[in-house]
């Protein structure tokens, strides 16, 4: 009995100690660190980065450290997928970094759950001595705000354009498609099949069943994902159904190849199974690194248009998480990273697209690119950004995204009609929105 009583006491003591320390340390209101405890711009800044091996941050941070010896940067790199899990857990545990790179598609989920600080407090609306809002396009400005708060500063942007094997189009006498109908026709002529009716085995057009690509056609067809109040799914209305029908027609009438695994796209380009696809500026760097032998054979053009130009707007944002211990110094570093000369590294190191308006005028971005046959492809993506729309900023975006992917996949696999699939996806989305 004495033994049992002692055991119980130890157990209860351990439980009490643990529960005493278990309460969330982060402020759930989503505001940045209390100004009264914010350090001056000095000390240590912890930076978390998901960019990977080609990150432009390392070079920028090295130069920042020389220019700002009073600030020590603790740079930590993480795998993209692990980052998505580690970031919220760390913020909730009071172990948030001071500055982090985040995929823009994560912004609604993280912002809705109070993980992101309000940059307006630390920036006072200024970026490198000028109004912050003036240094981004209107679409980018909108994408940087959640529920009226400035939750991120866009570091690089993602908007879609058409990548195509110029050498094959020239060889087969095919014009670069500029409309949906021309895309169906051009891909049908470009693709090579082992037999009539078989899926293309050479120079096909990748049809990727994800929300990024469906949204491309939805927005081009003047459609929307949610209504203006962000309360109800509207992608199952005629504009959305037509967009999905068009995606399917690329498989049934065009030279489309159903390609659900984006991780294997580069390999498919390398084997020449894929000769055309729609994707963002970061693919320029991916192609150069992954398929160097096809240098000079590729070109970039505006994505073929439906009723209007359109694309999803994504990219990477710089955030100062809730509970950051040195937000002032973090903002100093963020401003450094957003200087035009530092934004150049986004293109030269990572092959991605810098986001600030001033960076878009950098000479490096308009230089002829030998990989793309002497074309300066960046301007195509810059034009795409001007008409790009970010995904709805709702807390349940993950569930809506998943529902749309299932609907699009179902149609691509021929399981059901576009209307039926999108109605099911809309019902799931409305439930996730609380309707």
């Amino acid at each position, binding site marked *: 009995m004495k033994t049992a009583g002692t055991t119980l006491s130890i157990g209860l003591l351990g439980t009490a100690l643990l529960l005493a320390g278990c309460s969330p340390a982060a402020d759930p209101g989503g505001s940045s660190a209390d100004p009264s405890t914010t350090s001056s711009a000095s000390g240590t800044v912890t930076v978390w980065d998901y960019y990977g091996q080609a990150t432009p941050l390392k070079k920028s941070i090295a130069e920042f450290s020389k220019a700002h010896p009073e600030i020590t940067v603790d740079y930590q790199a993480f795998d993209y997928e692990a980052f998505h899990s580690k970031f919220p857990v760390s913020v909730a545990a009071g172990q948030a970094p001071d500055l982090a790179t985040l995929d823009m598609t994560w912004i609604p989920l993280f912002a809705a759950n109070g993980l992101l600080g309000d940059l307006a407090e630390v920036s006072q609306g200024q970026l490198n001595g000028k109004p912050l809002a003036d240094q981004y396009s209107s679409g980018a400005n909108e994408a940087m705000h959640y529920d009226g708060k400035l939750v991120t500063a866009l570091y690089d942007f993602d908007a879609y354009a058409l990548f195509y094997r110029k050498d094959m189009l020239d060889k087969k006498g095919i014009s670069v498609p500029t409309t949906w109908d021309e895309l169906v026709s051009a891909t049908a002529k470009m693709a090579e099949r082992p037999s009539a009716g078989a899926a293309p085995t050479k120079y096909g057009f990748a049809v990727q069943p994800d929300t990024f690509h469906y949204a491309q056609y939805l927005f081009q067809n003047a459609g929307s994902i949610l209504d203006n109040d962000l309360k109800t799914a509207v992608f199952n209305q005629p504009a959305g159904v037509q967009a999905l029908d068009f995606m399917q027609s690329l498989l049934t009438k065009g030279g489309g190849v159903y390609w659900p695994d984006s991780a294997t796209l580069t390999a498919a380009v390398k*084997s020449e199974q894929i000769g055309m696809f729609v994707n963002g500026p970061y693919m320029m760097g991916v192609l150069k690194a992954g398929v160097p032998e096809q240098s000079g054979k590729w070109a970039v053009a505006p994505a073929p248009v439906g009723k209007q130009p359109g694309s999803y707007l994504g990219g990477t944002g710089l955030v100062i998480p809730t509970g950051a211990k040195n937000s002032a110094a973090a903002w100093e570093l963020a401003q450094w990273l957003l200087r035009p000369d530092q934004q150049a590294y986004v293109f030269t190191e990572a092959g991605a697209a810098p986001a600030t308006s001033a960076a878009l005028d950098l000479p490096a971005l308009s230089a002829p690119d030998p990989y793309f046959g002497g074309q300066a492809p960046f301007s195509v993506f810059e034009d795409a950004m001007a008409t790009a729309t970010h995904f709805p900023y709702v807390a349940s975006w993950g569930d809506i995204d998943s529902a749309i992917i299932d609907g699009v996949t179902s149609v691509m696999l021929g399981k059901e009609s576009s209307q039926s699939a999108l109605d099911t996806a809309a019902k799931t989305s409305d439930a996730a929105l609380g309707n």
Partner: protein
Amino acid sequence: MPLVAPAMILTVIFFFVPMILSLVWSFTKYNGMAPARWIGGANYTYLTQDPAFHTAVWNTAIFAVVTMAIGPGLGLATALLLNRGVRAQGLFRSIFFLPVTLSLVVVGTMWKVLLADNGFINQCLALVGIHGPSWLEDPSTALLSVSLVSVWAGFGFETVIFLAALQGIPRDLYEAAALDGAGRYQSFRAVTMPALRPTLVFVYVVGIIGALQAYDQMYVMTRGGPLKSTTTIVYYLMERFQRFDLGTASAAAYVLVVVLALLSALQFRLSRRDA
């Protein structure tokens, strides 16, 4: 007592406390940041109405049935072959056990490449004139593909277990059966199977418990798709966790805990009966 106190404290902190917290969260709306809000059994009610959870339960059940229908049988057959005194038995045992030593992430990644549309498996099928399906991209074949990969990865463990059990059966039982005129099949039925019963119970119950917790290979090979055809209960609750829906994730986890507890109790009862 002082000697076990550290272990007791660690067990309480890292085992019992998380279990209790998770149970409490299952009755709350909680995103891990804002204070948890008590909502009673609403999360459990939601699970009974969520088609995605129903799909996860169904997929988990099918995965368990397929892997347990094939795995132990294959393991026993392999053990019986190895028990016949083949040369280099140790080498064969190691070869069959090798996949068990690989992490499921490695197994899943390797088989994802092999089962690709233009992968090795379909290339072999093409040599004999068969056009292989999209193993992992077709909802009608994805779960079966992942299940068979899991069988490949795990049957070596069952082989080793059964082989040890077979080698523990006294030889004189077979001699006695032979004296009574029993043939090979009759010896198997009358001597081998009864002697293997405790091992069979262990393998099946432990195997089912493992199958009900399948996640790694689904994550690596198919990400729970296509069309949620490979989403299991654990995959479902991980998705809820990643979307900061800790209440629903905890409720799903406790549904699984109850099922696993019942299975463990069944195994314990059957083991006691055999003893």
